[in-house]
């Protein structure tokens, strides 16, 4: 059961703003402001105008936490508040866990520290006398889970799930399993990543995975469009409160929906490449649907990985056809990465949050920038405009470097309050 959620994504400062933006089909991609991107191939990204005091952070917290930590903690605090399980309630801390998806750790702070300690790359033997007292926290991504656990008072199972760009889905899937096996009653789970930093931009430049549409940043990510040329790197976070059904019922929690199916597979194919035939993705979808015990035709909306690379568009379209059969042509499929970019490990959790909101509001968010459909992508990708539609079952998928392929099924909770 999902009983609370919070999103921080480019172009907005809270969940409501996020939902308004993506259902309006508006893109938040802009020219990079975090640093001067002139020397880079791709110069656009999805950035958050982060205002730590406005998010309730003290100066001390702001110094200690990397951007990825600030995003995770801010979302976690809001999500538990919405769910009504904030500290002071009778929840046993030992039965409360945390699962944070994250692909690249405290990437921004690691690089900032490196630049100082190496004197901007001049010294191989970096100088320890210049280090920040928080360097070790940046070094170990587990600190992101620690900060989140401290923020919500969790003393049950706590950890980071780091499976590249499927981390967000996988962190939530992991949390669901911990609840189902009885290791926790409530999990604060989601993901965070803040990779808009020179080394990350450069490494995606090197493999030409990111968009070069520098003169039209908002139009940069255009999944399923004939003219797409790569994804827009982004930062973001989402945290959800997942709760054992009985526990949620007992306290009369307000429920967004339930995660009823999840599966993760490896494609064992290539660290960055995807198979043309989408076999492993299809298998993950089928396994997730089986776990939810539903027929493919029950799916009312598919939240695509839709990163905006040709390779992904073709792979994913094949996978949907394989797993959903003829129904693939009938079900709306859209990519919110067309609006908020690809925040690596975080995006999967943001997309699950978007799916929960889609169920609640009965609206399918569109794929922005889709003006000229690629003839090889022949499904209904919901171009440009959102659609009102009663949605009771949603499928969301993700693919990541390392060959990770994950799928998750969310379903409407019919009973109103739990």
């Amino acid at each position, binding site marked *: 059961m999902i009983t609370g959620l919070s999103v921080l994504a480019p172009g907005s400062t809270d969940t409501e703003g996020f939902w308004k933006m993506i259902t309006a089909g508006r893109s938040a991609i802009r020219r990079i402001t975090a640093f001067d991107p002139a020397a880079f191939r791709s110069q656009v990204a999805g950035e958050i105008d982060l205002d730590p005091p406005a998010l309730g952070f003290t100066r001390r917290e702001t110094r200690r936490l990397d951007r990825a930590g600030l995003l995770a903690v801010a979302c976690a605090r809001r999500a538990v508040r919405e769910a009504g399980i904030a500290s002071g309630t009778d929840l046993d801390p030992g039965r409360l866990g945390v699962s944070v998806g994250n692909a690249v750790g405290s990437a921004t702070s690691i690089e900032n520290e490196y*630049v100082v300690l190496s004197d901007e790359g001049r010294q*191989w033997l*970096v100088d320890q006398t210049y280090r920040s007292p928080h360097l070790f926290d940046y070094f170990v991504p587990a600190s992101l889970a620690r900060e989140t656990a401290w923020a919500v008072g969790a003393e049950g199972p706590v950890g980071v799930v780091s499976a590249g760009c499927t981390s967000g889905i996988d962190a939530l899937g992991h949390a669901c399993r911990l609840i189902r096996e009885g290791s926790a009653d409530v999990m604060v789970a989601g993901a965070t990543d803040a990779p808009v930093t*020179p080394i990350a931009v450069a490494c995606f430049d090197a493999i030409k995975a990111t968009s070069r549409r520098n003169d039209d940043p908002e139009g940069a990510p255009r999944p399923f469009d004939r003219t797409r040329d790569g994804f827009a790197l982004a930062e973001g976070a989402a945290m959800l409160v997942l709760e054992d059904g009985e526990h949620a019922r007992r306290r009369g929690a307000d429920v967004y929906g339930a995660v009823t199916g999840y599966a*993760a597979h490896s494609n064992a194919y290539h660290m960055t490449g995807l198979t043309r035939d989408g076999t492993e993705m299809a298998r993950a979808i089928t396994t997730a649907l089986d776990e939810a015990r539903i027929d493919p035709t029950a799916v009312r909306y598919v939240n695509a990985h839709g990163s905006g690379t040709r390779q992904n568009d073709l792979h994913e379209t094949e996978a949907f056809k394989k797993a959903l059969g003829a129904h693939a042509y009938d079900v709306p499929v859209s990519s919110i990465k067309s609006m908020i970019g690809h925040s690596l490990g975080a995006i999967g959790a943001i997309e699950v949050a978007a799916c929960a909101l889609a169920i609640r509001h009965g609206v399918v968010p569109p794929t922005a920038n889709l003006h000229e459909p690629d003839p090889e992508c022949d499904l209904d990708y919901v171009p440009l405009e959102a659609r009102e539609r009663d949605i009771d079952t949603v499928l969301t998928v993700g693919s990541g470097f390392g*060959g990770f392929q994950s799928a998750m099924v969310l379903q409407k909770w019919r009973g109103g309050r739990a």
Partner: protein
Amino acid sequence: MSTDVVVTGIGVTAPTGLSVKEYWDATLAGTAGIGPLAGYDTTGYSARLAGQITGFDAREHLPGRLLPQTDRVTRLALLAAERALDDARADIAELGTYACGVVTSNATGGFEYSHREMQRLWAQGPEHVSVYQCFAWFYAVNTGQISIRHGMRGPGGVIVAEQAGGLDAIGQARRTIAHGRGRLMLTGGVESSFDPWGWVSHLASGTVSTRTDPTAAYLPFDRRANGYVPGEGGALLVLEDAEAARRRTGRRPYGRITGYAATFDPAPGTERPPGLRRAIELALADAGVEPDGVDLVVADAAGVAELDAREADALRAVFGPFGVPVCAPKTMVGRLMAGGGPLDVVCALLALRDGVIPPAVHVTDVVEDYRIDLVRDRPRPCPLSTALVLARGAGGFNSAVVVERVP
């Protein structure tokens, strides 16, 4: 959990050996692999001792095409993976590619690779950054490369919980098999980040020992405890359903994984007790074992007085004063981050197999108040059937695994 999960293969990369036999012989002999960090000039750094793997030439173990795209940590992990699968005599194609998965833990990533590429970026410009940087350094790299090399398409993943994460990965693999989602899981952790940038980051923990005498630097539970020595390497284990493994191999497995639990310490400033005791009790309950059924504890052995005291408190609370033999094999190799827990599980399994507890080395003056039975100086032979392995990660992670001997 009803399904019996057993360990059928082990791959070790440790400062004391690159094979199970080398590692175990050294461990029983009390041979330490701790020494001055080699490879570059460390005179500018406040600590200079490490548990370093020497004599590892990746070219002997890996195909040439993998060398440009792998950090040292992944090269070590690929070696451990290959050896573990060989040891288990596992044929992935025969077992079914979707039934075999990989779950690893990694606390720090491929740091040396990243360091080199960041230098290229900052000293030369973005066009000099390698096409492999986008995946060679991140925390998922070992799972990804292992799954690709061995064609393992089953449920995979990466769990990170600083130094407790290796046990969490084992817990996750066990869960996957017990719930019928996988038939064979390769799991554990391997760690290495000793380039200068990684080394300085290690030192930033504030608890790395600054002593220069390798026999006096890392002394858990000792009155002279002064921090720890970082180590590199770790272990990967092959886990299978017991019945399926028996039918497949006809051999006795190394042992069973019968219990697992993880907890987290309360946030600073709260009055609530730390979580290690709870992790122990939950893991024992998961295994269906009473404290007096435990014959051996492989301790986390922090080497920091406050943390040692806390571990001793938990052991006394659960087992009573001097209630169970305690073993600290990390004293020979240092703390291997996410690789440490899995290597300690290997130590526990081999101790059960051979009926002997390896000694903690260098520790001479155990704090009396701890009232723990720390095995030191020489191996202690005794019949063993059940062992508890503990690991803690900085910030408050506590994990516990119970392993049992297969009669």
